[in-house]
């Protein structure tokens, strides 16, 4: 008997994870379950599938979702196009790490403050708020998330690969396309994940930088909950989660393939 209690109370390093596990249970798992349950309940708490009908039957919600995905794709593409050359150049110069820090520093300032400041600048410049300003705000906010992983991967590439390619007679373009780019695929993928997933769910940036004229999926979810339409709001949240999971899954799959590329390259 004593032995059993002794075993029960045994303290290992595992014990230290309990507080966080408890936290996860309370604030992540239980809310997710609640969302799932709410999706099947109507306002009188009866089981129903009407919420699904309402969401998938209404073209408006699907248009909003489509708009959000498009904005997400554009933001990610812009971040990649702007971020890759920056990360590439920074990885080549010796003081690159310090400059990267300068890029990342703004991340330490709360994004709401930065967005409000951006808005004030646009207003002072007389720029009309709309899709353009929203995209600017998104790219500005998420660019560091793209540069960071890219820089880490690019500066981690063994120089000898590049030298080997040059030895074998590759010109600059070929060196870049055949060695640097394939070797940095994992960085590109994690950059895309880190930008795309948060952008499809943003709502504050779009709301602030367009005065509420650009209405994204995040805004839609917020509106539903605010209006007490928990069922539809929950379904939207689930749809969003599914998108996050899908993009994560695709990224993982690609990542594994890219490892294979690396090996075959070697």
């Amino acid at each position, binding site marked *: 008997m004593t032995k059993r209690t002794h075993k029960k109370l045994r*303290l290992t390093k595992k*014990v*230290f994870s*309990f*507080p*966080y596990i*408890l*936290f996860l249970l*309370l604030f992540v798992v239980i809310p997710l379950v609640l969302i799932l349950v709410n999706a099947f309940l109507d306002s009188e708490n009866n089981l129903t599938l009407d919420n699904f009908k*309402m969401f998938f039957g*209404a073209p*408006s*919600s699907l*248009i*909003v979702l*489509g*708009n959000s995905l*498009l*904005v997400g*794709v*554009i933001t990610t*593409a*812009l971040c990649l*196009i702007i971020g890759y050359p920056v990360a590439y150049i920074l990885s080549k110069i010796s003081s690159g790490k310090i400059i990267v820090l300068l890029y990342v520093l703004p991340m330490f300032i709360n994004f709401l403050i930065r967005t409000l400041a951006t808005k004030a600048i646009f*207003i002072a410049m007389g720029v*009309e*708020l709309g*899709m353009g300003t929203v*995209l600017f705000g998104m790219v500005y906010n998420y660019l560091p998330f793209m540069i960071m992983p890219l820089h880490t991967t690019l500066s981690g590439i063994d120089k000898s690969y590049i*030298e080997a390619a*040059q*030895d074998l*007679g590759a*010109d*600059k*373009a070929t060196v870049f396309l055949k060695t640097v780019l394939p070797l940095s695929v994992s960085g590109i993928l994690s950059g895309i994940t880190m930008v795309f997933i948060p952008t499809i769910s943003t709502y504050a940036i779009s709301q602030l930088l*367009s*005065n*509420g*004229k650009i*209405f994204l999926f995040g*805004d*839609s979810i917020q*509106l*539903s909950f*605010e*209006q*007490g*339409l928990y069922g*539809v709001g929950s379904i939207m949240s689930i749809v969003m989660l599914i998108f996050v999971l899908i993009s994560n899954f695709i990224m993982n799959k690609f990542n594994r393939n890219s490892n294979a590329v690396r090996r075959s390259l070697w």
Partner: protein
Amino acid sequence: MKRKFTLCLTAIFMLACTLLPLLAACDGSRNAASGYDTLVIYNWEDYIDSGDSEMGRSDLRDEFERYYENVTGRPLRITYTTYDTNETMMTKVLKNDANVDLICPSEYSIEKLLLAGLLENHNDLMKDIAPQLADIEKRLDGLDKQKLGEQELADIEQFDASLGGMSSLKNNGDGSIEPKIMSVIRNMFSNIEGVKGAEGAVDMTEYMVPYMYGTLGILYNTNVISEQELENYGWGVLWNVMENEQLENKILMKDSVRDTYAAALFYLYEYDLLPEKYDYITTAQELINLTDPDILETAEEALTSQRDHISGYEVDFGKDDMLNEIVYADFAWSGDALWAVEESEQDDGSFLLGYYCPTGVNPNTGKERFSNIWYDGWVIPTTVKNKLAAMMFIDYMCKPQSAIRNSVAIGYSSAASKELLMGDEYVKSFLEDQEYDFDEYFDDIGRYPKIDYNLGVMRDFGARNEDLVNMWQRAKSGAGVDVSLFIIIAAIIGAVAIAVALYFVFQALKCRPRRIVSKRADNSQK
């Protein structure tokens, strides 16, 4: 062994660190230290006079605590919590985890709470607290008036065992509430059917006492919009019907379904754009409580067409943007608008901003202009613990001195009778202290609008609310997928393609003939 002990301690410490804030957050017990009565108030943010040391005003809540103690002989502690939207408040109250004594929601939320059977009839409560009130009277009679301080005497003087200020009590008539407001409310809310746990129709006025009220109108920049334009175009100003170039894209609407929907309806009515079947409508009340699919569709068209003329939707920054002249017209609540107008006083004493609540007849279409009148009222939910304090608090808020103080502090118009306020000596001296002109204050048409059939109260839309929200989503997201997005995507792809192509062209030109050994390789060989 010692190590284990330390481990154990650390684990307990970490657990405590996580759990304590949790426990604190879940602290639902409101049992203050014994010997205290408690009162839990759930109100809008910034919706009571919380004192202003510069202007020599103390916190009205503290004053009520003192009043309660002087009258009942028992100390009171007020717990004051706030919400920012009716919906936040209703979520909490409808799920029964509010545990409060007093709430101050808007008319349609009151209706919703009433329908859910969550409100107490004030007349029933009066019966419950009658013995307590009798005890208080006995106690006050027994007090030696000679020994009391000035403040205590004043408080006792104010006490009225019949709680005469409350319009919800049957014996009081309209109490100290403006009779015109009460008649609008009675007209709309005196026969509520289908209240949970009640038989037959229920009179909502017995469940609530109006606190503040206001109208919806247009806050405008006097340099950009002339009074003539307002007179001629009314609600059309928000659609920039007069095609004022300066105003284009400088209009803000409310990011709130009910208000913006109401604006669309007023506009449609004034410009005679409603389908023929609505020709029977003659009052604002009828108009703004329409929610059938046809009218929603018409309103959606109006709101979608408005998108091309407005800067956007807001609920909080409109006043500031108006003051900073970032936008020139804002669809606003009267209280907010009056505050902004006061703030906009210029060096020469004129005002940059003005508030206009459309009334009268549109000279071009010959149709009348309507607007919305809304009000917030005190209600007592079924979770009430301290019935006496809750009732006394409502009564205290109805007294002229509380009404004028709240009204001045928060900028909204008190629902207390204008006549009562104007006849009160305290009100006169108080307005003087706060640097207001007495006549100007009460003659302000923005603060005290003419209340007749031109102003309608909006009811709870019930099950139709979902359709309204869907309409609002469509209107806000625009008609379809934004075409400009596809153009941007195409542009990005095009730009990348061109960049890559250029890169290769340059490479091809530069690297001919190809160098087999690169520079670096040369160096390393040396």
